[in-house]
């Protein structure tokens, strides 16, 4: 194992962590404040990826593509909030899960109808196509950009939530939304804005991920499951928890996939190591989640 390969794997992990954070921060905020579990969040990510790729292919402007993806996902999110989420806020989680499950089916099929069954091509902008030398190894510029965006969003989210009036209302809404409403805040509007914000972040994640993963129907589900693991591990409703857990989960997952087959190979026969390795690597984060839950049922950062 050489150290520069390890470093680039670590960066890959951080980059996946950033994408997971963009998804899970929206998911966890929407859950924390509205008590709404949105399985269609992965669909918003998919919307972002498709709109981002399509508008980049049409216009050639990366900035425009990112903006289009965020706006499109935000608007779809707003529509979802109005048509599906709002009538179900007060209902059992079961019905929220059911409704958003149906939405997910709908969006996956819609993507097939519009873009076809095969992966849709999304290009990395030529200006970002190079690689830079980091710690003695080549690393793609585009992946560094993703990491940078993630850091900016995390800082932005921290500022928005800790320092602005909107953030104050969000925090207040998370602890007691009816009290906030009684104090004369338009909680409905707040919820709509928050839903749009979460959807926009999911769209941003999708648009960023498009060129490095394959853009196709159903692409949101595996990431959604990871995001759910992240918010369970990080503690539901906590953005800080989501950030920490997203990084831990993504780095462990990436390094596990890269190194577990190697490690097993050092004391097992190559054939069986190759068979067992990937299986163990893919189970790793779920085992981690089970361990976290066994000792801290409310998540790693939750003091409850």
């Amino acid at each position: 194992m050489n150290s520069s390969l390890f470093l680039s794997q670590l960066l890959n992990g951080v980059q996946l962590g950033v994408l997971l954070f963009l998804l899970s921060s929206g998911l966890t905020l929407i859950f924390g404040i509205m008590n709404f579990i949105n399985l269609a969040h992965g669909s918003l990510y998919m919307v972002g990826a498709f709109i981002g790729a399509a508008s980049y292919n049409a216009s050639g402007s990366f900035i425009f593509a990112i903006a289009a993806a965020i706006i499109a996902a935000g608007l779809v999110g707003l529509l979802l909030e109005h048509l599906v989420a709002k009538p179900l806020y007060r209902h059992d989680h079961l019905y929220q899960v059911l409704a958003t499950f149906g939405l997910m089916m709908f969006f996956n099929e819609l993507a097939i109808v519009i873009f076809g069954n095969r992966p849709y091509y999304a290009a990395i902008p030529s200006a970002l196509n190079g690689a830079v030398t980091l710690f003695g190894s080549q690393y793609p510029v585009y992946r560094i950009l993703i990491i940078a965006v993630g850091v900016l969003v995390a800082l932005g989210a921290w500022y928005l939530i800790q320092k602005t009036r909107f953030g104050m209302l969000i925090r207040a809404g998370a602890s007691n939304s009816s009290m906030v409403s009684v104090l004369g805040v338009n909680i409905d509007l707040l919820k709509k804005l928050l839903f749009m914000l979460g959807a926009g972040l999911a769209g941003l994640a999708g648009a960023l991920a498009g060129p490095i993963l394959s853009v196709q129907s159903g692409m949101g589900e595996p990431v959604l499951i990871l995001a759910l693991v992240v918010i369970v591990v990080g503690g539901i409703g906590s953005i800080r928890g989501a950030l920490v857990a997203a990084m831990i989960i993504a780095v462990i997952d990436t390094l596990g996939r890269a190194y577990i087959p190697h490690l097993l190979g050092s004391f097992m026969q190559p054939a069986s190591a190759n068979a067992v390795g990937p299986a163990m690597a893919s189970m790793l984060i779920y085992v981690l989640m089970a361990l976290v839950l066994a000792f801290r049922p409310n998540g790693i950062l939750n003091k409850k």
Partner: protein
Amino acid sequence: MNRVKFGAWMIPVLFILLAAVPFVAQAIGEPFYVTFFARVLVYALAACALNLVLGFAGLVSFGHAMFIGLGCYAVGILSFYGISDGWLQLLAAVVVCALVGLVVGTVCLRTSGIGFIMITLAFAQMFYFLMVSMTTFGGDDGLNINEPSNFGLFELSGSTEVYWATWAVLLAVTIFLARLKKSPFGMVLQATHINPRRVNAFGYSVFRVQLAAYVMSGVLTGLAGLLLANLTAFASPSYMSWPVSGELIVMLVIGGLGTITGPIVGAIAFLVMEEFFKGLTQHWMLIMGPVIVVIALVSKNGFAWLIRRREEPAPAPSAAPAAAPKVAAVSAGESQ
């Protein structure tokens, strides 16, 4: 309690109608219907099993397809090694499902509400990815099962055999669940849904009661998996993918949570609806998705509003009629 009476004639009528399916299919020369309804019954069995945790105890397990998959692979992996003895496969399915149910249930039941939903989902995905990456057993492509389960006296060698086996198991499970619901255990289980704190105060352990129900439910779902493997002669990771878990929940909600025959009626309604939309268009999910959304939006109690109406003079106002007639039509066909 009118519901007891209602259920008392509902069960025989339902099962007599289901018993007529193979004969009718033969009479009209459409053997496809036997295969189709065998699949319906397998899913009905899984839905009944899920009802034990979701309907009785209010635990939204979003990973029940995991047990279907485990049951399938109990048949698949054993027959991969040349063991087609049905009793051994059954034993393997029951033991594996019970053990997995015990471990997964112990972890999941530490959380509640939304945490439970997500963790059961995550565990199911874990097994899904495990089977996808096990290339020895076919990985992503699944595993062909060349020999059907052989139970000595009978062999699950065709759709009709699987149909009758599932019919019998489903009948037994239905009667079992109807009795269980009225038993002290069933009463406590339902009470954990309504007021867990009081149940604890009465000296029962909510955790143990729920865990027992979860394990039992897992084992019964595993039986459905064993039957499904024989029906399709195939074990695939996709049988335990999370859309399957979601579909089971939809069936339960359509049929009525916590009712005895609801899951069966729900499974019939859901799969018939799905088959109908598949006939209309290749993109049937474009219709099915919104239908599920509408079902979730308008029917908090699904099909149960029909039963409720018999008991209470005034039906709940939230039982909106939009999605119901479709379901009611199916039910009327079943209960005549």
